[in-house]
C-alpha cells in the first residue's frame, strides 16, 4: 500500500532522515520506534508532505512525492501530528466537521460523526465545548477522530500516547486496534515500546535518521539486545 524508497529529510545542514526505506501492506499495523531525535516525525512528515524530502513515496502504486499535503490527504493518506494540534479555538463538533472537509456525502459524514462520538463518549459530552479546553487524553481522542473523518486508508499517528497516564495509554491502544479492525492501515510512531509491540503486526526501528531494523513485532519484543541498544530507557 505504501512504499517509501530512500527518503531523506534535511533541515538546513541537519540531516534528520537518511535514505530511509519502508513498506507497509494493506491492513497492516506497523510501529515506528526509536529514541528522541531519531527522525520518526521527520519520516512521517516527509510521507505526508509537510516537510521537503528527497526520495520516492509510492502510495497505492502511485508516486505522490511531488504532491502537496492536501492532495495526499485527498488520496487517502493522512497523519495525526505529534502533540495533537486540535483546533483549540473551535468546538469539538467544528473540529470533526473540518476533518470531513474533503467529503461531499453529507449523510456519510453525519454517520461517521455519530460513530466516533459513540466510540469516544466523552467527546459527545464535550461536543459544543472549545477543543482547547479538553484534557490531553480527550484532545488525543479528538485528533484521531478528526483524522478518521476524512476516511483515510492509511493513517499515521505521531506518538498518540504522548503525555497520557498509563491507564489511558492502554485504552488509546485499544482504540487504535479498533481502527485496524475497521480496515485502516496504520503507521504509529511510539515511545511506549512494549505497548506498541503488543498491538502492532510489524515494526521498524530508527535511530540517527537511519532505519536500523525491521521485523515482526512479536520477535522484536523478545529481542533484548535490540531493545537495549535502541529503545532502552
Amino acid at each position, binding site marked *: 500500500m505504501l512504499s517509501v524508497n530512500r527518503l531523506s529529510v534535511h533541515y538546513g545542514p541537519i540531516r534528520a532522515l537518511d535514505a530511509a526505506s519502508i513498506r507497509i501492506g494493506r491492513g497492516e499495523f506497523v510501529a515506528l520506534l526509536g529514541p528522541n531525535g531519531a527522525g520518526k516525525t521527520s519520516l512521517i512528515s516527509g510521507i*505526508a508532505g*509537510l*516537510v*521537503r524530502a528527497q526520495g520516492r513515496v509510492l502510495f497505492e502504486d502511485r508516486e505522490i512525492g511531488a504532491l*502537496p*499535503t*492536501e492532495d495526499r*490527504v*485527498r488520496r487517502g493518506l*493522512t*497523519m*495525526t*501530528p505529534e502533540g495533537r*494540534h486540535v*483546533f*483549540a*479555538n*473551535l468546538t469539538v463538533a*467544528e473540529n470533526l*466537521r*473540518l*476533518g470531513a*472537509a*474533503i467529503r461531499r456525502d453529507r449523510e456519510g459524514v453525519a454517520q461517521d460523526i455519530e460513530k466516533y462520538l459513540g466510540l469516544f463518549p466523552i467527546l459527545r459530552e464535550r461536543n459544543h465545548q472549545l477543543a482547547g479546553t479538553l484534557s490531553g487524553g480527550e484532545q488525543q481522542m479528538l485528533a484521531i477522530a*478528526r*483524522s478518521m473523518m*476524512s476516511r483515510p486508508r492509511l493513517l499515521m499517528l505521531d506518538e498518540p500516547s504522548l503525555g497520557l497516564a498509563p491507564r489511558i495509554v492502554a485504552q488509546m491502544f485499544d482504540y487504535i486496534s479498533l481502527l485496524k479492525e475497521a480496515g485502516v492501515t496504520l503507521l504509529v510512531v511510539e515511545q511506549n515500546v512494549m505497548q506498541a509491540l503488543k498491538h502492532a503486526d510489524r515494526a521498524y526501528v530508527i535511530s540517527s535518521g537511519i532505519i536500523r531494523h525491521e521485523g515482526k513485532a512479536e520477535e522484536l519484543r523478545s529481542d533484548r539486545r535490540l531493545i537495549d541498544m535502541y529503545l532502552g530507557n
Partner: protein
Amino acid sequence: MDYAIQQGLNALAFGSEYALIALGLALVYSIMNLMNFAHGEIIACAGYSMYLAILIGIGSPWLVAPIAIAAGALVAVLFERIAFRPVRHAPTTTGLLTALGVSIVVQNLLTLLISPRPRAVPVFSELSRTIFIGPYAISLLQLLELAVVALAIGGLVLFLKHSTLGLAIRAATREFSTVRLMGIRANRVIATAFALSGLLAGIAAIFIIARRGSIDPTFGFQPVIKAFIACVIGGFGSLGGAVLGGMLLGFLDVAIIVLLPQEYGGLRDAIAYSIIAGLLVWRPEGLLTRRIELGDKEI
C-alpha cells in the same frame, strides 16, 4: 438632545467604517501574519472602479455599489496571487515590505493612468440627505452605513461559524499545517481571507466616496492608518478586537471634536494618539488579546 444624538450617530458611523477596514486587516493578519499596508490601495481601487463605472455610463448607485464591492474582492485576490503568494514563507518583514511596495506601485499607477488630481464621483449624492425620525434630524448616509456594516459583520460571522471555509480560516489562525492535513487547500483558505478583506474594503470605499464625493490616488491611506490603530487598540489579529478598536476610535474622534474648544483644533490628533498611547501602556497587547502562534507556518 438633538445634538447628542447627531454626534452619537457620527461616532457610530466613523467607528463602523474603521471597524470594517480593521476587520479586513485583522483577517489577513490572523492567518498570514501579514500587515497588509496595501489594504488602502484595495480601497482606492474599489473607489476608482466606481469612477470608471460612471465614465462608461453606469450611473445607478444600485449598480455602482456592487461593482465597487466586487472590485475590492478581486483586487485583494490579485494582490495575494501576484505579490504575496511568492513571499508567503519568507520572514514577516519581507511580507511587510512587499505590502509597502504594492502600495507604492499601485498609487503610482493610479496617478499615471488616471490622474494625480481628485476626480469627482458624484454617484451617491442623493444619500447625503437628512431624514426625520420623529423630531430628530438624522443623516440618511450614516444610518445606511450603520445598517450595511452591521449586515456585513453579521454575514462575516455567519460565514466564519458555519461554512467549511470559514471554519478553516478560523482554524488556520493557529494551526495552518493541520488545516492542510484535513485536505483543505492552503491557497484556497488564504485567497478566501483576502477576498473577504477586499469585500469589506469595497463596502468601506462606497461610504467614503459617498461622504467625500471625490477620489484621488492616496484615497485609502488615511482610513487604513486609522484601521491599523484600531487593530492595535483591539489586539492585533483578533477579529472582535478590530471591531471594538474601530468603534472606540470612532467615539474618541468625535468626542475630541465635540469637547475640544475650537482654538485647540490643531491638537486633535495629538490628543487622540496620547489617549491611545496611554491605553497601550495599560494594556500593551490590546484590549481583546489573543496570542497568535505561528510556529507551524513553514511550507
